[in-house]
């Protein structure tokens, strides 16, 4: 074999190896694949296809100010690698901050989903509610799907340099979060609100894992913000509903609750005005 043939053969071998290398890497990263992570409220509350009990004619009684629990519904499988506990806690703290100033809420407890993971169903919810002394619990379920696709530039990933420099991987993350608020005593759904987000981005092959991780976290955060906004609107609608249909949900106040306070009523104001007029008339006459 001549020297030139040897060189050509060497180049071909190197090209094949590097292309395989990037291809294997690419496959490892999950190119053109779909990742999904989700938690289902219905599956959690009624596991193994359990049929929900008949609706009892029990009227929820909201004893203001409310003690509210806030938790993510645990994922179906412990192998599902969704958000970390720390990230979940951070997101729930943001939601908590949006509602903490509401006058009818005494406090909001962020409950780690590890507390809910051991068992399923309303029995677990009742146990946690007793533990925290909750009146109402807000359960956040979610569904996140991430797609990784390659565009035309990805053909140059074989060159290794292309894998570092060319943004040939397209990431698309779609997130749906839903918060359902339950009355703990009656297990009745009071109201719910959802939030959605779709985030797209592109990255180099080398950075695609990091980019995907960041996109997932960002999409979760934006969906939660959307959900919080919708939750505020739903809460206002719920308040109106309570005012209009007084029989459906009872609202009572804990003794002493009101804060507010000291407001002179119109009876006393009218009495004072009458007395002022009387005293003036009496003084003038004298």
């Amino acid at each position: 074999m001549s020297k030139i043939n040897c060189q050509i053969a060497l180049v071909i071998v190197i090209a094949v190896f590097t292309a395989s290398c990037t291809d294997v890497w690419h496959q490892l990263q999950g190119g053109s694949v779909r990742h999904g992570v989700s938690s289902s409220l219905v599956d959690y509350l009624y596991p193994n296809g359990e049929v929900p009990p008949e609706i009892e004619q029990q009227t929820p009684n909201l004893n203001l100010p409310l003690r509210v629990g806030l938790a993510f519904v645990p994922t179906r499988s412990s192998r599902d690698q969704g958000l970390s506990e720390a990230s979940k806690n951070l997101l729930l703290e943001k939601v908590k901050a949006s509602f903490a100033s509401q006058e009818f809420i005494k406090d909001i407890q962020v409950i780690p989903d590890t507390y809910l993971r051991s068992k399923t169903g309303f029995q677990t919810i009742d146990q946690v509610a007793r533990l925290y002394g909750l009146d109402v619990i807000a359960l956040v379920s979610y569904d996140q799907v991430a797609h990784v696709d390659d565009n035309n530039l990805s053909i140059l990933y074989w060159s290794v340099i292309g894998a570092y420099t060319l943004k040939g991987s397209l990431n698309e993350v779609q997130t749906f979060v839903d918060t359902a608020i339950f009355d703990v005593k009656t297990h009745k759904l009071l109201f719910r609100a959802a939030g959605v987000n779709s985030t797209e981005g592109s990255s180099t092959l080398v950075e695609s894992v990091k980019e995907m991780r960041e996109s997932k976290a960002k999409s979760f955060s934006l969906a939660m913000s959307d959900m919080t906004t919708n939750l505020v609107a739903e809460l206002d609608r719920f308040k109106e509903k309570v005012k209009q249909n007084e029989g459906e949900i009872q609202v009572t106040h804990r003794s002493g609750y009101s804060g507010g306070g000291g407001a002179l009523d119109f009876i006393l104001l009218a009495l004072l005005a009458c007395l002022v007029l009387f005293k003036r008339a009496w003084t003038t006459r004298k």
Partner: protein
Amino acid sequence: MQLTRRSSNIGAELDRFSIVLALVTIFLGFGQLVPALFRYERSLVIEGEYWRLVTGHFTHLGWWHLLLNWLGLVLIAQLFISLYSYLYWLISALLCLLAISFGFLFLNPELDWYVGLSGLLHGLFVIGVVGELRKGRWLFGFALLVLVGKLIAENLATLPVDMSRFIGANVVVEAHLYGAISGGLIAVLMMVLNAIWTRRFGDNSR
């Protein structure tokens, strides 16, 4: 110590009345600017923020709430301020405020927070009515009966007009009750003190 008013210069009295009212109004407005710092909050009082026992009464939920109580204050001042000296009113008001706040602290442990002047206004009203009754103006006895009826109604049932909707939060009716009771006790206490003072130092001593 002069507890009863003797001055008869109406112009000067009106000026003093306006100045006192303006000062109280400024104080009320100031309390409105930073309510979180001034309102009665049980846990913070227990932790040592004792000023809240007094300042909580000068803080309000909103400008409407403030306006309502300010109107009551003006009417009560119009009615009764000439009965006693400013020193008398100041001491009485302070005792009344403390009595209401300690009432919350010991009798209403479930009450987390409170704002509003109406408890004090109920107290001042009773003090004023007692003063008028001492002067033989028996019509004020009828006013006292109306107040007692109102206090019973709001503490045991509800009043026809729900003020909570007007001020944006529930009304702590216990404040009115504690204010009225402490006002009555303070009026009696001040009468006794005044009598002792007069007997010991004579009517013209100060």
